[in-house]
């Protein structure tokens, strides 16, 4: 399974639902216990609307979408983002929806530059989200 990583190729939008239990699992797995990711009381105290997702969780979803698309879990050579908006995760069964899409800007020397767009409620939550992925050498 792999896609043709050519300039202009589009990573189709992937939608990920994020609920409170996902944040609790991520906190444990990543060892990040900042209370703004599990306590409304602490989150509102620092001026947030309520509990927000870990920025690194959102970043991980971007990588997940990208490697699922390239078909190679080790295809990412570089990956960087800027955290611009929080992803509020309400305490209900629906939680938040994070949408990841992308497009290949250029390909050179066996490397593809991919621009990612990551949104929540229609607004970009990451800026300058870019990755460099390895382009497989065609067999034969």
């Amino acid at each position, binding site marked *: 399974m792999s896609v043709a990583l050519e300039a202009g190729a589009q990573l189709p939008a992937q939608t990920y639902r994020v609920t409170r239990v996902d944040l609790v699992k991520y906190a444990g797995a990543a060892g990040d216990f900042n209370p703004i990711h599990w306590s409304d009381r602490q989150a509102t105290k620092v001026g947030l609307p309520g509990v927000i997702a870990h920025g690194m969780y959102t970043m*991980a979803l971007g990588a997940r979408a990208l490697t*699922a698309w390239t078909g190679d879990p080790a295809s990412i050579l570089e990956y960087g983002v800027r955290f611009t908006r929080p992803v509020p995760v309400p305490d209900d069964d629906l939680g938040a929806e994070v949408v990841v899409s992308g497009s290949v800007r250029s390909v050179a020397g066996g490397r593809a530059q991919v621009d990612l767009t990551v949104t929540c409620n229609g607004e970009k939550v990451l800026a300058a989200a870019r990755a460099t992925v390895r382009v497989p050498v065609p067999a034969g």
Partner: protein
Amino acid sequence: MPLDASFIGRTYPPSEPYSVGRERIREFADAIGADDAAFRDPRAAAELGYPDVIAPPTFSILISNEVGQVIIQDPELGMDYSRVVHGDQRFAYSRPVIAGDRLVSVITVEEISSRAGHDFITTRTDITTDAGEPVVQVWCKLVVRGEG
């Protein structure tokens, strides 16, 4: 009080080796919902040419966050962590993190600046095996929000 710019270029001593375990990788992959077999099954990883299960790309944040404590808790630098927000994050991989790796981290302060009452600090963590093989470089920019 702005962060002390004389810390720019400072490199902290290498960390103790971090032992990467299969279970920790699987737990991380489960938490982010990444279902690739190579994160869980050594045979699937072997098909891709790796000696054991590999970690998802952002797994190394566990390691860089842990070693980053040396800066956050450096009393000389005096960072108020309650005011810290994650600004930027970047990774550059030489290869994936692999279960069984013993990873040593060296953290360097690359940049400190101030703008509009906020302080910015960028660190680079060079993660290698204990034999010196490069694995991943991790850049993290933190924003220390000004008071008021």
